[in-house]
C-alpha cells in the first residue's frame, strides 16, 4: 500500500482509529467531557484530512475502496453530519443516567462504516461498510436501554436489519456465483446485453436490502418505530448518515452499472419512488408523534431522491447530492431540536410538547421552523433549492408522471409540516407546560450553524452548485 493510498484513506483511517482511541480512553478513565472532546477533535481532524486526500485522488485502494471526488464529498458530508450529531448528543446524554462514553465509540464506528460505504467499489467493501454501520447502529438505537421503547426499537432494528443484510448477502452471493467477480466495475464490464436470471434475482435481493436501509416502500414499516424508540440524536444519525451513505453507494452502483438502460430496473425504482412519496406523506398526515412524523417524512424524501436518481445524467448526481446535503442539514436541525428539548427520561416527541414553543424558546422555535420549512421546500431554505434541483433534474429527463406524484406528495406533506409549525406558534398551554431542559452550548452551536447553513444554501446556492458540478465529472 503506497503512501498516497494511505493519504487517500486518511479520513477513514482517522475515524476508525478514533474509535479505538476512545475505547481505550474509556477503559482508562470515564469522563464524558473528555470522550466528547476527543470525538469532536478526531472528527475535525478527519474532516481536515479530506483536504490532504483531495491532492491524491482519484485513487483506487486495492480495488475495494475508490477514493474519488465523489467519495470524498460524501465522506466529508458524513463526517460533518456525525460531528453535528456528536454536538447534539452531548447535552442529551448529559441529562441521562446511562453510561455515556460508549456512545461515542459506536458513533465513530458507525461513521467509519458509512465512509466505507461511500467509497465502496466492490461487494466486499459494500458488505463490510454496511455491517460496521449496522452493528454499531444496533447498539445506538437501543441506547436508551432502560426504557421499554429503546429496547423495542433495538430489537426490531436488530432483527430486521439482520434479515435485510441476509438479503443483500444472498444477492451478492448469487451475483458472484454467476459473474465470478465482486467488483462493481468488473460486473459492469461483463454485463453484455442482459443479465441471466440468477444475477437478476441477486440484483433484486440487493435492491431489497438497500431499500430497507433507505426505508422506502414497501420496506418502510420499521422506520417510525425505530425513529421513535431511538435517542433523538441517533434518530438524526439514522435518518441522515445511514441513509446518505447508502444512497452514495446506490448512486455509484447505478452509474457504474449504467442501470438506466434496463427498463425493468428503472420501472421498479420508479414504482418504489412513487409509492414512497405517496405512502410516506399520507402516513405522516395525522401523526401526532413528531419523531414518527419525521420518520414518515423521511420516507417521502427518499422517494424524492429516487426521482432525481432516475433522472440520469450529470444533473442527477448533482441534484441527488445537493438534495442530500439539504436533507442532512434539515433533518439534523429538526431532530436536533427534538433532542435539544428532550429532558431526562422524556423525549419531546408529542406535538403538544411543541405548543407555544415560539413564545417560550424563540430561537429554538426559529431553528425548528426553518427546518420544517426546508422540509416542505419553502424558498430561502436549502430544502427549496434541493427540491427545485430535483424537479429540474426530473423535468430535464421528462419524468412527468413522477414529478406530478412528487407535487401531489409535497402538497400533502405541507399539511403535517405546517401542523407542527402551527403548534409551535400557538398560544402556550397555560396549565400544563412541558418543562424544557436548560440550554446547552454545544447543541446551541450545532443548531445555529445548521440553521445558518440552511438559509445560506437557500439564498445563495451558487458556490455549492459549482462544487457539485465539478464532482460529477469524477464519477462519470
Amino acid at each position, binding site marked *: 500500500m503506497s503512501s498516497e493510498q494511505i493519504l487517500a484513506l486518511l479520513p477513514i483511517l482517522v475515524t476508525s482509529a478514533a474509535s479505538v482511541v476512545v475505547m481505550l480512553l474509556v477503559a482508562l478513565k470515564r469522563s464524558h467531557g473528555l470522550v466528547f472532546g476527543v470525538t469532536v477533535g478526531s472528527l475535525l481532524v478527519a474532516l481536515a484530512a479530506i483536504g490532504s486526500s483531495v491532492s491524491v485522488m482519484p485513487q483506487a485502494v486495492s480495488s475495494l475502496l475508490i477514493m474519488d471526488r465523489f467519495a470524498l464529498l460524501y465522506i466529508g458530508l458524513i463526517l460533518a453530519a456525525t460531528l453535528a450529531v456528536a454536538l447534539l448528543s452531548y447535552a442529551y446524554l448529559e441529562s441521562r443516567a446511562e453510561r455515556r462514553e460508549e456512545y461515542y465509540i459506536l458513533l465513530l464506528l458507525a461513521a467509519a462504516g458509512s465512509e466505507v460505504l461511500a467509497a465502496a467499489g466492490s461487494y466486499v467493501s459494500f458488505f463490510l461498510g454496511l*455491517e460496521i454501520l449496522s452493528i454499531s447502529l444496533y*447498539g445506538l438505537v437501543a441506547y436508551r436501554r432502560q426504557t421499554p421503547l429503546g429496547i423495542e426499537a433495538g*430489537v426490531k432494528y*436488530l*432483527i430486521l436489519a439482520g434479515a435485510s443484510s441476509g438479503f443483500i*448477502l*444472498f444477492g451478492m452471493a448469487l451475483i458472484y*456465483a454467476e459473474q465470478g467477480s465482486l467488483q462493481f466495475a468488473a460486473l459492469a464490464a461483463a454485463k453484455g446485453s442482459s443479465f441471466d436470471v440468477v444475477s437478476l434475482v441477486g440484483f433484486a435481493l440487493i435492491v431489497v436490502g438497500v431499500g430497507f436501509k433507505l426505508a422506502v416502500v414497501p420496506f418502510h414499516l420499521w422506520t417510525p418505530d425505530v425513529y421513535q424508540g431511538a435517542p433523538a440524536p441517533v434518530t438524526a444519525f439514522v435518518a441522515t448518515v445511514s441513509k446518505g451513505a447508502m444512497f452514495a453507494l446506490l448512486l455509484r452502483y447505478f452509474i457504474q452499472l449504467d442501470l438506466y438502460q434496463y427498463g425493468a430496473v428503472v420501472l421498479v425504482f420508479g414504482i418504489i419512488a412513487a409509492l414512497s412519496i405517496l405512502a410516506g406523506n399520507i402516513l405522516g398526515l395525522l401523526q401526532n408523534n413528531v419523531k*414518527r412524523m419525521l420518520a414518515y417524512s423521511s420516507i417521502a424524501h427518499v422517494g424524492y431522491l429516487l426521482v432525481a436518481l432516475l433522472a440520469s445524467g450529470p444533473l442527477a448526481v448533482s441534484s441527488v447530492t445537493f438534495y442530500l446535503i439539504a436533507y442532512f442539514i434539515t433533518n439534523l436541525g429538526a431532530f436536533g431540536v427534538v433532542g435539544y428539548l428532550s429532558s431526562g427520561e422524556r423525549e419531546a416527541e408529542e406535538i403538544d410538547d411543541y405548543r407555544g414553543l415560539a413564545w417560550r424558546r424563540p430561537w429554538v422555535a426559529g431553528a425548528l421552523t426553518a427546518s420544517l420549512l426546508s422540509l416542505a421546500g419553502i424558498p430561502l431554505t436549502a430544502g427549496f433549492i434541493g427540491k427545485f434541483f430535483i424537479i429540474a433534474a426530473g423535468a430535464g429527463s421528462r419524468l412527468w408522471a413522477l414529478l406530478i406524484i412528487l407535487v401531489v406528495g409535497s402538497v400533502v406533506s405541507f399539511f403535517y409540516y405546517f401542523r407542527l409549525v402551527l403548534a409551535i406558534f400557538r398560544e402556550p398551554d397555560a396549565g400544563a407546560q412541558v418543562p424544557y431542559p436548560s440550554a446547552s452550548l454545544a447543541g446551541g452551536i450545532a443548531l445555529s450553524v445548521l440553521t445558518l447553513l440552511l438559509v445560506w444554501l437557500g439564498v445563495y446556492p451558487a458556490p455549492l452548485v459549482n462544487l457539485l458540478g465539478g464532482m460529477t465529472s469524477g464519477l462519470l
Partner: protein
Amino acid sequence: MRQYPIDYGLVLSAVLFAIGMAGVFVRRNVIFVLLCIEIMLNAAGLAFVLGGARWGQADGQVMFIFILAMAAAEVSVGLALIMRMFHRFKSLDTNEIARMKG
C-alpha cells in the same frame, strides 16, 4: 468425484435461505428469530463458497469468513439486547414488544 452443476448448490442455498426467511416470519420467540437470521446468513455463505469453487477463487471463502465474523458480532449484540428485553418484558415473545405503532 462427480461434478454437480453449480445450480444444484445454489438451489440448496436458496432453500436454506427460504427456510431461514420463513423462520423469521413465523417464529415468535426472538431467540429463534435470531437463529433463523443466522440460517439466512449461512445460506448466503454457502452460495459464496459455491461461487468461489466455481470460479476457482478464494474470494468466496473470504466472504464466508467475513460473514462468520459479522454473524458473531450480530449475535453478541443481539443476545445482549435480548437479555435486556427479557429483563424488562419478562418475555421473549416478539409480539410483546409492539408498543410503538400507528
